Each structure stands twice: as C-alpha cells, then as structure tokens.
C-alpha cells in the first residue's frame, strides 16, 4: 500500500465541477480534494446534486477528501471568517458539521479544516480554549459519522505548526476522529524540523497531505520547481512515514493555468518519486516502461520506496548523525559504527505490525547501517545522477564494502545490501559498485537466512540482477514463507517463466497434499512475455 496522488479543486476554480473532475482523472490522478463552497459545491446543496457528484467521482475511480478552505462563503467581506478561534463562530461550526455530513454522503472519509488567525487584540489563550471547546463537539460529530477530521497547521494561524496541532490533539485526549493535514510546502516556512521532521512527528496522526512548492521565506503556493522544496527528499520522507492516504496538489492561486499545471505537477512528482528502475544493465528481458502505458492514477500503483530505504535516506539524528558525519569525513572509519549500529539505535522492526521480525521491511539497525554506507559514498548524498569515483581520497569503496560484508554478521550484511538499495534509489551507483552488488547479492541468495534473501530482493536487485537470478530469489522467498512484499519491482519484473515456476511449485505442493503458499498466486498469475 502506498499513498494516492490527488489534485485540489481550489486549483480549478475556472472550471465547472464536472469538467474539473474529468480533467483530474484523465491526467492520471487517483484522488480529488474537493473544497466545499464556492464555486464547485454548495454545502447545503439538495441531496440530488450530492448524489450526482458522488456518482461522478465514483465513476472516475477517484478517492475523495473534503476540504473546507473556502474563502468568502460564510462572510463576504472577511476571508476565512468566522474562524474556530473567534469569539463568535456559529457559522463556522455549522459549516464544519455540515461538511462532515456531506463527506459521509459523498463517500469521503476525511474532512480537512484549519484553526483561523488570531483577531488583533484577542487573547491567545482564550482563543485556544474556544478552539478546544468547539473541536471537542465537532470531533464527537465526526466520530458518529465515521469521518476523520484533519486539522491543518497554517502559517500565521493559531495552529501554525505540526507541534501546535499535536498539542491540540493531545489536549482532547488524542481522539482517533481527529487527525492532521500536513501541507508539505508550509513546512519550509514554519517547521523547524523541515519537511521530514514535520512528517515524522505527524506520522501517527497523519490523515491528509497537501503538496506544493513554496519559497522558504514566505507562504506562497507555487508550481513544482518554482520554490525551495526538495521534492525527491520530501517524497522519501513521506514514504518513510508509511502514510497510505491521499496526497493532494494544492495550487489555489493558479486556476488560470489549471490544465497545464495538472500535467506539470503530475509529471514532476512522477519524476521525483524514487521508484524501481526496470532497465537494469544486466537484465535479459525488457519490460515496457510503466510511464508509457500509464493507466489513470498510475502513481498510486508505483512501487513506493521500501521502508528500510526510506528510513536510511531520512535525516539522521543523535548517534547516527554523528557517525554519519565521521564516515562522511573519512570513509575508512566506517567499520566501527557499522558494527555498533544495532546497539546504538536498536533492532526494532520498521513495520512491526505486519513484520515482527523485520525480515520483510527491515529494522531500524538495517536502515542506520544503510545510511552509513550512503555516507561513505561521495555524491550519493546529492541524490543526483553523479557517479561516485570508486577510489575517492585513496579509499577503495568497493573493497571497503566487500570487506564490511564478508567480515560482517548477518545484520551487517543486510546493512551493506540495504545501503546498495539506497544508492540505487538515489541513483549514485558506479559500474564498480553495481558489479560488487551483484557479487554480494549472489552470496546472500545462496544463504538460508530469510532476512538476507529478502534484503537481496530490494531496489538494487530489481535494477541490476539478471532475470534468472531474480526469479530464483523470488521463489526462494516463497519457500521460506517470507512475504513477496519484500520484492521491489515485482509487478515490473515478473514474467511468464516465473509464473511457470510458481505454477509447477503449486502443483507439486498439491500433489503432496501440502498447503500452497498464498504468495504463489501473486506470481503465478503474471502472463507477461519474458
């Protein structure tokens, strides 16, 4: 499961709603963030009209989120007034209650909202108290309707940062029906921990995400490329949270250029999204590039960065940050922190709920070790396609990594393999490192330790293992009862030969009266030509 890319209707204010929805769907988005109010949908519209919208959204296969940032619906003279923090806010409360009902009618499960700006001369503590009091009853309403409210921190508002929003949520007892919206552009302006810090802090309560570019100096939504956002890094940070909801592009001041920006935003995110290359040097078969045959909403079906790689590329803290600094200065000092990593950062599974042993999605220690490998490779941290010199500063990186692997225990070996995965994702592998990775993957795939086999089926394997080796790795995982979720690029690389192997194995199991692993069906059904 990964997140679904959407587009906000407030960026299509010059199009009637039906045409806006059509444009969003046909450009390839899988979701829509619909602002309730002028010009697209009157919150108090007749049931018939709500049904029509619901049917259209469903027919287009769009996931729907309701947004409430309508500007002059409640007060024709003051933008966004009245707000939840104001002394008088009956109209706002009524509107938000109605938004919850409309969300239910339209089959949405999330309603975005914000707190409001403090009126000059008003008392901040009193405003916060009013917000809490009103939110308490709104959360109860949302809970009854099975809807999740998503409080969005906004620059200049009473709830301005993720920390502010989390504090409000905590004061209400962390109700499930109250989540957070994080606007990734806002993070550049108001979040001390940047995009990655804000997303990581919000992760447990993340209900909705908006995405846009922005200058770090002030709150101005801009098309991707026109601000200071590092989009690839933002997407890696987002993947690292495990978020599976809607991510909607938020360009409310660019309705005049909507058709162009729909495409431009979609393409910018597709390009920035680290996905598994399928044109590896050593591949014996070629698969059609997914982009050329992209179905609507295709981004929502692209392989996300594996959790262990996303965690490895996330900004480091504490001990790891220090160790990375040391290795960055002098890659020869990689050995000691590499061995100690698990004792310093722990061994918890990154997705303990689905994968208690950390075999499929990796562990905290795997990610830390992968981060140390990345730190040892010059140019890897830029995320650009600059190839590192394998003999930088007199250090032979290939020898260093080979020795780390050969003299390492299983955890360290996983760390080297995951490091190569991370270098694959940021496109910083030299030909020498690719050859080393192939050698080490072959060794790992010979072992009978499932965690090593799983670590050898990530993005590096998807990009650089020959088809025969890759197929055997996938089947070996099935043998070891490890979920094929561990395999990067499974859909891209599965072929008719793998399907035949899976079918034969299933037949053999049935003949012996033994259970057939569920995962065999995932690869037996692939009918691509190899």
């Amino acid at each position, binding site marked *: 499961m990964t997140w679904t890319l959407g587009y906000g209707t407030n960026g299509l204010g010059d199009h009637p709603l039906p045409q806006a929805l059509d444009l969003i769907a046909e450009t390839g988005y899988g979701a829509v963030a619909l602002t309730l109010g002028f010009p697209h949908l009157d919150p108090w519209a007749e049931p018939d009209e709500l049904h029509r919208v619901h049917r259209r959204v469903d027919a287009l296969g769009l996931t729907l989120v309701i947004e409430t940032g309508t500007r002059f619906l409640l007060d024709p003279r003051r933008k966004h007034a009245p707000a939840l923090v104001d002394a008088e806010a009956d109209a706002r409360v009524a509107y938000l209650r109605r938004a919850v009902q409309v969300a239910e009618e339209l089959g949405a499960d999330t309603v975005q909202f914000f707190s409001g700006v403090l009126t000059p001369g008003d008392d901040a503590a009193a405003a916060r108290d009013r917000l809490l009091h009103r939110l308490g009853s709104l959360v109860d309403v949302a809970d009854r309707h099975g809807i999740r409210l998503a409080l969005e921190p906004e620059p200049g508002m009473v709830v301005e940062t993720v920390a502010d929003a989390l504090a409000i949520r905590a004061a209400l007892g962390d109700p499930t029906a109250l989540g957070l919206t994080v606007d990734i552009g806002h993070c550049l302006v108001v979040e001390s921990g940047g995009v990655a810090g804000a997303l990581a802090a919000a992760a447990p309560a993340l209900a909705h995400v908006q995405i846009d570019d922005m200058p770090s100096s002030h709150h101005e939504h801009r098309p991707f490329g026109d601000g200071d956002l590092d989009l690839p890094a933002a997407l890696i940070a987002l993947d690292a949270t495990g978020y599976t909801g809607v991510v909607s592009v938020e360009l409310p001041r660019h309705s005049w250029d909507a058709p162009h920006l729909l495409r431009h935003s979609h393409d910018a995110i597709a390009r920035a999204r680290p996905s598994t290359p399928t044109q590896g040097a050593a591949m014996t078969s070629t698969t059609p590039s997914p982009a050329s045959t992209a179905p609507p909403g295709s981004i929502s079906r692209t392989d996300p960065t594996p959790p262990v790689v996303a965690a490895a590329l996330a900004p480091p803290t504490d001990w790891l940050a220090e160790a990375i600094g040391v290795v960055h200065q002098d890659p020869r000092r990689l050995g000691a922190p590499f061995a100690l990593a698990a004792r310093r950062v722990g061994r918890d599974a990154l997705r303990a709920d689905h*994968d208690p042993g950390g075999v499929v999605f990796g562990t905290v220690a795997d990610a830390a070790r992968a981060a140390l490998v990345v730190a040892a490779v010059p140019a890897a941290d830029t995320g650009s396609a600059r190839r590192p010199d394998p003999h930088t500063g007199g250090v032979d990186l290939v020898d260093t990594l080979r020795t780390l692997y050969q003299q390492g*225990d*299983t955890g360290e070996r996983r760390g080297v393999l995951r490091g190569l995965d991370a270098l694959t994702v940021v496109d910083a592998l030299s030909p020498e490192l690719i050859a080393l990775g192939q050698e080490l993957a072959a060794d790992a795939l010979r072992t009978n330790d499932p965690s090593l086999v799983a670590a050898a089926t990530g993005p590096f394997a998807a990009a650089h293992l020959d088809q025969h080796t890759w197929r055997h790795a996938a089947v070996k995982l099935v043998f070891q*009862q490890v979920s094929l979720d561990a395999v990067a690029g499974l859909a891209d690389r599965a072929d008719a030969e793998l399907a035949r192997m899976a079918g034969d194995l299933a037949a*053999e199991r049935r003949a012996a009266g033994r259970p057939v692993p569920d995962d065999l069906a995932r690869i037996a059904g692939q009918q691509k030509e190899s």
Partner: protein
Amino acid sequence: MRILDPHIHMTSRTTDDYEALYAAGVRAVVEPAFWLGQPRTSVGSFVDYFDALIGWERFRAAQFGIRHHATIGLNPKEANDPRCREVLEVIPRYLTKEGVVAVGELGYDAMTPQEDQVFAAQLAMALDADLPALVHTPHRDKLAGTRRTLDVVREAGLTPDRVLVDHLNETTVGLVRDAGAWAGFSIYPDTKMDEVRMVAILREYGLDRMIVNSAADWGRSDPLKTWRTGVTMLEAGFTEDEVDQVLWRNPVEFFGANLILDPVPGFIAGQAPAPAEFAGSSVLRGVRA
C-alpha cells in the same frame, strides 16, 4: 524458571536440544569459542568457526526462540600450535560484533610459555574492547592452574569482577571467591561437578558471583543440567527467587549490556520454526521441496 546458560557449545548440539532447552526455560545462551576435537590447521578454519558463532548458530537458536551469544578467543590447547597463533590478529575485529559478550575461553591447558603469551595477549584485548573474560581452568593440575590464572588476570589489569573462572570444584572455589572473581561451575553427567554437590557449594558459599552452566558440547554432556541444578536447589529448600538469581540474574549481571534478552520476534512457543508470519528456515527437514 528462566535460564541463561552461560557456557554451552550449541554448534555441537541438535535442534532437539534447542527444543528441550526452550521447554526447560532457557531463553538465552552464551557459546564460548573452543576446540573442536579435530585440531585446526589454519586461521581460515577459525574465521569460518567464529563467523558461524555470530551467524548461522545465532540464527539457528533464534528459530527455537533462544537468544544466542558468543565469546571469541583462541583456546589454550590450540595456543600451543604455531599454525593457529595468527588467529590473534583477527580476534579484535570480532570483539565489536553484535552478540559477542566476552573474550574466551581463555586460560591454561598444559601451562606452557605459549599459553602464557596467548592468555596475556587476549586479556589485553578484553581490556581494550571493554569486555569481560571467560577463563577456563585446566583439567589436569587444576589447583595450580587456577592460582596462576588469577595471577595473570591481576597482572593484565582486569578488575576481578570482569573475570569468570570456570569449571571450578570444591578445591578451587574458595581461591576464586577470595580473589573477588566470578565462580563458574560446569555441571556434567559424571565429571567436573554434579547438581547435588553444586547445591552444597551454594549453601556453603552463598549465591553471589556464582554461575552455573552445562558446558554441553560434542562429548558426553547434558544441556539440561542448568535446569536440573535449579530443580535440585528448589528441592533443597532454596526459593524460586534464589534459583532465578543463580540461573538468570547472575550471568546477566556478569555479561552485561551486550546481551540481547528480549523475546525473539515472531517466535511462537510450541510451534515448529517458521510460523507463517515469521521467517522460513532450513533447519526444517521434510517440508522443503
């Protein structure tokens, strides 16, 4: 009863033993590096053995719900073989590894000058790596060997609380305790020590700094002797808490922070390895095509 067997050579034991150990309450073991019966002829043979102690054997134990640790060192018998001496150069890099909790087994076999040098060199490594040392006492001339062991440890600069002197008996326990070191007892079916004599020693000397192990290996030995000692203690009137101190808290205190003692994730007691949500494993036979 929860048990940490602080000295057991699982490489030589079967998966049946792992299942029996788990059933008896063993949740963690320490496997000291030692000789294999068949003399080694090169350093490469040691490297593969050490790699197995921190690799394959740890994985195999985890399949049965048991946390496996190792101590790394050149044993005194092979310290006398010049072909094996070079292994001293690779030992320091193993001392930083996950799950390596001490330097060992060190000590004396035939009390030769070579054994002296190798013993002292490895005590210095223990000091450098901030690890305790597991020292075995010689089977022949045990009393003199134990005295000399304590002298060498003192000269090396290790504080006595960082040293476990193992394979003790009635004649050597007093010496070790007076020196302030930890006293280890290997409970064997018919040599070294038995559980009844062990309980008598605990009565006489108390429970502090006392460590009980099975030292089970490729010879006649019984991996459940730690558990039998616990049962014999209970029969003799010791409390469950006192048994817990000897069989769990004492070795945990001695080996310290590098032990990994949380339950193996995904392991389900009483189930064969590789329940659906955990890793498969080739310790299984007969269910693999």
